[in-house]
């Protein structure tokens, strides 16, 4: 399962989501503005106070938009 932790107005979050859609990768969006639980989880995963964070299978993650890392993680 691919999860994208994001907020509503973040251009890098939009870029990540657009990229995943362009590659037909299904993902769950977790808007940390709307859920304190997601916010805590996002911080716990990366240790950074930053979005977007994309996780694969709940452990491996990519901070911001990093095409090379996303491709490697998702096998694209």
């Amino acid at each position, binding site marked *: 399962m691919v999860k994208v932790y994001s907020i509503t107005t973040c*251009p890098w979050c939009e870029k990540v989501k657009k990229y995943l859609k362009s590659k037909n990768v299904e993902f769950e969006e977790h808007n940390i503005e709307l859920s304190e639980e997601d916010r805590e989880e996002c911080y716990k995963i990366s240790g950074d106070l*930053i*979005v977007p964070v994309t996780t694969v299978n709940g452990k491996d993650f990519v901070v911001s938009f990093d095409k090379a890392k996303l491709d490697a993680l998702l096998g694209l």
Partner: protein
Amino acid sequence: MAKEIKKKDIIIIGAGMAGLTAALYAGRMNLSVLVLENALVGGQIANATGIENYPGHKVIAGGDLIATVQQQAESFGAEVDEFDPIERVDLTKSPKIVETEGCIYEADVVIIASGMNRRKLPLPEEAKYAGRGVHYCELCDGHMYQDKVIAVMGGGNAAVDAANFLTKYASKLLLIHRSQLKADTVSQERLKKNEKATICLNTEIESLHGDGKLETVTVIDKTTGQEQEVAVDGIFVNIGVIPNTELFKGQVEMDENGRIIAGEDCRTNLPGVFAAGDVRVKEIRQLTTAAADGTTAALLAEQYLSRMRQE
């Protein structure tokens, strides 16, 4: 596997206001146009929360404005690709070569509209606290500092606009700048009226401290020389921009700051290569002047292509 070779009339490097305006004009002239963007469509304005000085809009978010320009350009046939990073260019020959991760593009004209990147905080601790207290995207990361103390570094329009935006999250906001503010009076006045905001002029951040994430900064008052440790949870850095011209070094003439030397006609030293927007040496860098450059570059590119194909 060898990369596919594709031909275009015009390749535009950079999908900010200059690049997308050039794409809109070139598309309307029935030229085949591809815009390549390595970072964010919109460039610097992708992060702008409210633009109040672009004619035709009382106030508009940068992302909304640029999305409309992109749609306009695409409606006239221009393509925009933000997921195929450029690896190298050869602009000295004809056709020009732009090699991306996925393709080799050949084009008779290249318009460089690659804009500027935000300057990083020039402190050795920057890397340690990047994403953990030091940030470069207010729209993305501002939310992480709900009811926290936020500092914004810088004194130009981008800094003061960022400070105004971040007051919606901060319990207390410090605008820290090494000299006097250069931002528009309207933005300055708005910040001065905000009870959460304190403006610290002639002040510099000397060092960052914190266990795992930022907790305090040492600031120095440049007038008195007095140092002080101040509790700050997050810093948003807006201390200027640097031209995004690394790809073109050794090919296109630049000034000592890395900006491309081109006049009001946007022509560079290389035939068929134009520079538009903030990346070009010029006095005024605004969205409106970027749009003007994009217009000029596209129209003169079309003239260049017509003459070249008549010869």
